[in-house]
């Protein structure tokens, strides 16, 4: 199984989800989140019973907006309303399998081996842009900065060590296949283009809890301004500490393991996330990622989350993980067959 095909399938082969079901709440049409420009009327968010900005609810980040900006758009950071409408129509009218530049269809992209989405009620006409941005990554470049040579080398070394051993045992398989860290589980939270990976926020005194549906990923974040845990404690999802800045929850995360490797990064990854209730039905999520041993400079993305209908259901990945056993067994069967032919 080559790296390239794994990449293409990994990018496309998602658990078929709510391309169809996770339509944001009515009225959340393209651009309403982006309309909250500085000139717009300030909106006061509701407060929890103990007086903190209320971020609670069930949220979805489904959007057609691609993570990185298409090269052809250069430094264009925002579409006009007309451009969004035109692009949305092109996507709705497109033939199945037709790729449209500037839109991330995620699981709707063609794949040979996977479910026919129509049997799950997939309706292309439900797909929407949730902001007028041309990419989730903000700024004039709109793409992840180039990876430093040392990071390329580090990642290449890792792959090289596993070469020829990709199917030896569970520890040689990707974290997502092992149900240790699913791609969608990782922080920062990035839309996988129309996956129904709902986020539930529950706030108690001194804590904000994020329950991300996939693999029941739960982060209980203290907001008392405490320091991080000691540096020798490394965690798959790092260690998060939060504090309030006005109406914004700021979450600072460090202490990642060197295997977490978000987008090829190292244990030096430093993540700052900002959560602001921009409207009753909109949670603006902005994150800045830095790792001086991976990228030349930090980079920032902005993702609007829209209020949606719950509940969040249990997603127990490991308990039902027949896939990894089938894959390892399949490799053993293939080896036996090859050995028999060789005899």
């Amino acid at each position: 199984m080559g790296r390239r095909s794994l990449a293409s399938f990994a990018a496309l082969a998602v658990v078929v989800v709510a391309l169809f079901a996770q339509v944001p709440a009515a009225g959340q049409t393209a651009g309403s989140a982006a309309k909250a420009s500085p000139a717009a009327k300030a909106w006061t968010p509701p407060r929890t019973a103990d007086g903190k900005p209320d971020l609670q609810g069930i949220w979805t980040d489904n959007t057609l907006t691609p993570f990185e900006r298409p090269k052809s758009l250069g430094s264009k950071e925002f579409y006009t309303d007309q451009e969004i409408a035109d692009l949305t129509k092109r996507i709705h009218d497109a033939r199945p399998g037709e790729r449209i530049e500037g839109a991330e269809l995620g699981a709707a992209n063609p794949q040979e081996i996977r479910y026919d989405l129509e049997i799950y009620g997939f309706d292309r006409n439900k797909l929407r842009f949730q902001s007028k941005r041309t990419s989730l990554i903000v700024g004039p470049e709109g793409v992840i900065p180039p990876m430093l040579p040392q990071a390329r080398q580090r990642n290449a070394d890792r792959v090289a060590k596993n070469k020829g051993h990709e199917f030896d045992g569970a520890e040689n398989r990707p974290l997502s296949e092992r149900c240790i860290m699913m791609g969608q589980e990782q922080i920062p939270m990035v839309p996988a283009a129309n996956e129904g990976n709902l986020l539930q926020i529950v706030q108690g005194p001194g804590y904000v809890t994020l329950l991300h549906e996939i693999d029941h990923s739960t982060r209980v974040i203290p907001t008392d301004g405490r320091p991080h845990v000691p540096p020798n404690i490394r965690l798959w999802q790092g260690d998060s500490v939060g504090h309030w800045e006005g109406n914004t929850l700021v979450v600072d995360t460090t202490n990642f393991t060197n295997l977490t490797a978000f987008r090829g990064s190292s244990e030096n990854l430093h993540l700052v996330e900002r959560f602001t209730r921009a409207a009753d039905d909109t949670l603006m999520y902005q994150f800045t990622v830095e790792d001086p041993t991976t990228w030349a400079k930090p980079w920032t993305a902005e993702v609007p989350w829209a209020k949606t209908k719950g509940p969040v259901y249990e997603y127990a990945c490991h308990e039902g993980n027949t896939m990894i056993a089938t894959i390892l067994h399949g490799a053993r069967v293939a080896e036996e067959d090859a050995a028999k032919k060789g005899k």
Partner: protein
Amino acid sequence: MRNWLGDSVIAGVVAAGLMLAATHSAAQAPAYRAPRTADGKPNLNGIWQALNTADWDLQGHAAAKGPAPLLGAVFAVPPGLGVVEGDEIPYLPAAATKKKQNQANWTTLDPEVKCYLPGVPRATYLPYPFQIVQSPQNILISYEYAGAVRVINMGAPTKAPGDSWMGWSNGRWEGETLVVDVTSQLENTWFDRAGNFHSDALHVVERITPRSADTLNYEATIEDPKVFSRPWKISMPLYRRVEKNAKLLEYKCVEFAEEVLYGSLRKKSSN
């Protein structure tokens, strides 16, 4: 001569007896009133942990040799008084046999060995802390073990569309007590490492009551007509983790269970 000392003693004893009687009747009502959350409910927020050996065996048990001789006294079975009221678990006859088989083969059958989600009530008394985050609409409990989590719906009760490992929790307040009704659990979880088990008909009702500033009283009534002849009850205190900056860390145990689960599928003689 009148024994004034004796009379005083008798009076004292009578007075003490009256006081005891008064205290006893006062103990029928909750002796402790917890501080309130901003929305006026008993405050259960915090990091809590059970301090007993219920996860080894719900019933009373002496110390015993462990399953891993190489680990000697580090991993033998510690002794414990049971947490079952009456110390008896009322299995139906066929189920009692299955329990014995489970117990004899627990290292291969216990879902905890495989890092599977523990279900309710076992999640409460695993030897790891958990955190309660309480809001008016939802009470979320995050468990350190395996990242287990459940959200207790505090609004109008809702119905589960299907079964899950951690079940479906609807909660309500009864005075000082949080009452949680847990249904729709998969049959795959156990109550402990001693092979105590249930079917998909399991119905659990929990009652959580603050008993002091840093302790809760936890009770769970267990009902499963496919396995038990009547409902039965466990109870135990839960202790607050009071250290400064107490925090749940990750116990993402999947990687620790992979050898058990997939070791037989490993390539023979890998380089």
